[in-house]
Structures are given as C-alpha cells and as structure tokens.
C-alpha cells in the first residue's frame, strides 16, 4: 500500500472510529433522557391528580385511590442514613486496617472476602436478613435497645425484628464492601512520603492516620459514602424483606415502614387502576430525583474539597 492510500484509509478509519465513539457516548445521554421522559410521561396522570400533594401526603390507600409518597420517601431516606451511620465507621476501620496495619499475609484474603461480600445477590441478603438476622435482632438486640435507650423516641417501640433499623442494618452490611474498597483505594493514594513526614516529626501511627491520612483522603471518602448512599437508596429486595412494608411514618426506628423501592416491588403487579400505576411510576421518578440530588451534592462537595 502506498503512503497516500494508507493515509486515506487511516483518516477514514479515524473518522469512523470517532463517529462510533461519539455515538456510544451520546447514546448514554439519550438513554438517561429517555428514562426521565418515560417516567415523567407515565406519571403525568398522578402528577395532574395530586400535584405537590403527592410528596407531602402521608396517605397511601390504593382502595380509595389516594396516593401520597411521603412515607416511602421517608423510609428510603431514613434507612439509607441508618445504613451510612453504621457502615461508614466500620468501612473506614477496614480500609485503615488493610492499608496501614494488616500483615501482607492478611491483606489478600480480607480484600477478596470484602469483594465477595459485594457480589452476593441482594435477594440472598434479604432472605438471610429475614430468617437469621431478623430473629436475632428481635430476640436480643432490640429488647436491649428498648431497655436502655427506650426513653429516646427513636428507640421506643416493639421488638419486631423488622422495620427501619433492621433494614438499615442489612443495608449497612451490603454497602460496607463498596465504601471500604473505595476508601482503601483512596488511602493507597496518600503518598508514602507524606506519611513518612508525619512519622518523621515523631507521630505515632494513630496520629499519622488521623492528622495526615484521613484529611488527605477526605474528598475520596465523601465519594465512597455517596457511592454507598446511592446503592442504599435504590436497594430493593433486601429492604423489601426487612422493612415491614407498612406505609406509615413513625418516629421510632424499630417500627415497620416502607421505602420507595419496596413499594415498587410489592405493588407493581397489583396496580390494577391506571392512576395506581401512574402513582407507582411517579414514586420511581421521586427515587430518581433523590438519587440525582445526592449525586449532585457529592460532586459539589468533592469539588470543594479538591480546591482546598
């Protein structure tokens, strides 16, 4: 092949490659737009009927065709927060252990175990939660909490073993692998020379971790939390098993509640009225918006930390 035709072939190859890449990249955006569009279009009847009242109403009554999303939104947000509160310290501890303390012989096995945790299907977590964790919580943990912290309204209730707290527990276990493996990667990026500088002025391991490693890794940890939060917000099966599926808002974390995804899973097949179906789709739209807002906040926060 002579130079000219080779050049022509390369440049047309380049053009095709560029076009194909563009197409795939743009199609992601289109897909995203379509999802929003469909969600919006399908939820229009519900939006027209209930307006903003959909978000503020606490009544979810399919028989009377009254649909308010507040209990589901509340349950989704609260269980996710519980999950983060439990999972974050544990995950940071795991990540610190793996990067700063574990002997080499332990690093591999523990790392693999954590990744395996992430690969367990959520239905398995749900069944394990319902059959193993829930009785344990109901028989031992919750009575203890009620006895000792029952004076706080958050922990005042019956030890059922299902509800927002148990759902938060199972979510915590499910997101620990995500938060800890991202945090581990972030800690690994802290330059060893920086840690050595800490040791060089006479700091102990704990002081180096607290004053040098953690501040340096802060924006990455925020990212890890958001990743976990995103997963916790949308998690369906395990939560459906554990949350109790009752569309009520209760201050007590021990009481049964519901979440957006649990409502979708439970009621999608039963929605026999167009308005019912439309309301369920609007719930999905709510979940989409919540996740989007959380991600947006995360981007803003990491950007702010990176600037500093």
């Amino acid at each position, binding site marked *: 092949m002579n130079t000219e035709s080779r050049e022509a072939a390369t440049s047309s190859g380049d053009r095709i490659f560029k076009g194909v890449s563009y197409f795939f990249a743009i199609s992601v955006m289109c897909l995203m737009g379509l999802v929003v569009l469909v969600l919006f279009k399908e939820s229009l009847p519900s939006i027209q009927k209930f307006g903003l009242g959909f978000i503020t109403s606490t009544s979810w009554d399919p028989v009377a065709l009254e649909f308010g999303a507040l209990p589901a939104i509340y349950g989704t947000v609260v269980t996710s927060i519980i999950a983060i509160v439990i999972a974050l310290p544990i995950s940071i501890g795991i990540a610190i252990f793996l990067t700063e303390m574990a002997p080499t012989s332990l690093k591999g096995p523990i790392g693999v175990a954590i990744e395996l945790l992430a690969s367990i299907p959520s239905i398995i977590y749900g069944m394990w939660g319902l059959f193993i964790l829930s009785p344990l919580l109901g028989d031992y943990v919750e009575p203890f909490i009620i006895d000792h912290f029952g004076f706080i309204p958050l922990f005042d209730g019956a030890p059922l073993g299902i509800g927002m707290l148990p759902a938060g527990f199972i979510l915590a276990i499910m997101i620990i692998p995500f938060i800890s493996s991202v945090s581990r990667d972030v800690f690994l990026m802290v330059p060893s*020379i920086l840690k050595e500088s*800490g040791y060089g*002025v006479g700091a102990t391991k704990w002081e180096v971790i607290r004053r040098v490693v953690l501040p340096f890794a802060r924006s990455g940890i925020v990212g890890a939390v958001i990743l976990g939060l995103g997963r916790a917000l949308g998690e369906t099966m395990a939560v459906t098993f554990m949350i109790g599926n009752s569309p009520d808002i209760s201050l007590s974390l021990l009481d049964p509640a519901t979440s957006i995804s649990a409502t979708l899973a439970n009621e999608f097949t039963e929605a026999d009225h167009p308005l019912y179906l439309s309301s369920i789709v609007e719930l999905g739209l709510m979940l989409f918006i919540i996740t989007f807002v959380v991600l947006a906040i995360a981007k803003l926060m990491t950007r702010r930390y990176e600037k500093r």
Partner: protein
Amino acid sequence: MSDKMTEKMEVKGLNFYYGTKQALKDINLAVQEGEITALIGPSGCGKTTFLRCLNRMHDLYPGNRYEGEILLEGKNILRKGIDLIKLRSRIGMVFQKPTPFPMSISDNIAFGLKLKGIRNRGEIEGRVETALKDSALFDEVKDRLNTPALSLSGGQQQRLCIARAVAVEPDVILMDEPCSALDPVATVKIEDLMSELKSNYTVVIVTHNMQQAARVSEYTGFFMLGEVMEFDRTKRIFTNPKNKMTEDYITGRFG
C-alpha cells in the same frame, strides 16, 4: 573553623538488608555536631537508604534488617526496645519533594509541637513564628498563617517542611535531596538556610548535585554500590580525593 569536634552520630559496621538483598555494606562514618555532612554518589548507591537508617524510617516497612551500630550521642539507636517515636522527634527529616500536611501553614508546624506535648497556645504560636523566621519564610507568609500550606509555592513548601522539622528542635536534621524538585532560585534559598541552621543543628544531606555538596558541606561521604568509598572533609574530597573512583565521579567521568 574550630578544631574541637564532637561526634553527634557514629556509624559502626552498619549492614542493611531489604529482605535478603543487602543494600549497605559495612558503613563506618561519623557525623560531626554542628556541621553539614553531605552524602553523594550515583543513583542506587545506597545513600538514601543510609539516610533512612539514621532515623530508622525503614522500620515502617516489613522485612528490613539492620546489623552493626548507629550511635546517637553514644547510645545505639539500633538496640531493641528503643522508642522509635521519640527517636524520630530527635532526628528530623526533610524529603525529596515538599510534603506539607493537608492543613494550614501554622498547623503544619504546630503538628510536631503538639505531638511533643506542648499545649499552651501562646507557646505554640511563639515557636511557630520562631521556626518560620529560622527558615526564612516568616516575611512571606506572616499574613496568611491560616491558609492551607498547599497554596504555597514549591520552594516555600520545602522551607515550610524545614521549619516543621526545626520547630521540634531535633538533634539532627536529615535531608534527602531537598532541592531536587526546586528551581535554582529556591535552591539557593534552601542552601542559605542550611548554612544558617548549621549553627544550631547537625545536618546530614543526601544530594545528587555535587556542586551543592561542595558549597554547603564540611564533610562528604562518597557512596557506591552500598559502600562508602571515601569519607573526608569536603575540601579534600573535591580537591584531592584518595580514591580513584571518587575522583572519576566528581570529575564527571561517570555517574
């Protein structure tokens, strides 16, 4: 130059191993108090490895092993049961690249002071200021002590790191190619600073830059393949080296 000399550190028959690989062979040399001792040699010759033996930085990583003795004011720092945290607060270190902590300028310096157990705010502020003045940085940063240290220029960051090392008043300051990431102007500032520090501190500096060793140091050790080829007064090393290899290296015939 007074002839009365005190040996701050003395290294006797030091061997060092990374796992099974021997990196230093039978090192013997003495670091004189209140002087700058330079370590030169080609890449991979063991000079940085040696420097990191002096504050036992190697102990942070598993599998490293020392043999022999390193005496700090007569006491062997390689002995078992020595408090490494205390040792490192007596032997400060400055690295190849500036390593400010992710906190404000004054907190960077206060970091080591707080570790030493100094809690009094007034005393901390005073010593932060002294350390910044000692490292010729105070005038440039006095209006923004509470801004992040990462906002400083590279040269300023390195002087901050020196200030941080100086603030805890160590016996010895180790510098591992402190100017390798800096431009010539910043390098001159650091070199001036080293000469001033000499009156109060003992400095050991690893450098790739032979002119720098010649300019700032009183003693020079030439390392090759994990051994000290020659250790002598800098003047003699650069004008009349005994070892042929030293001569070849400083005249630029290899390395």
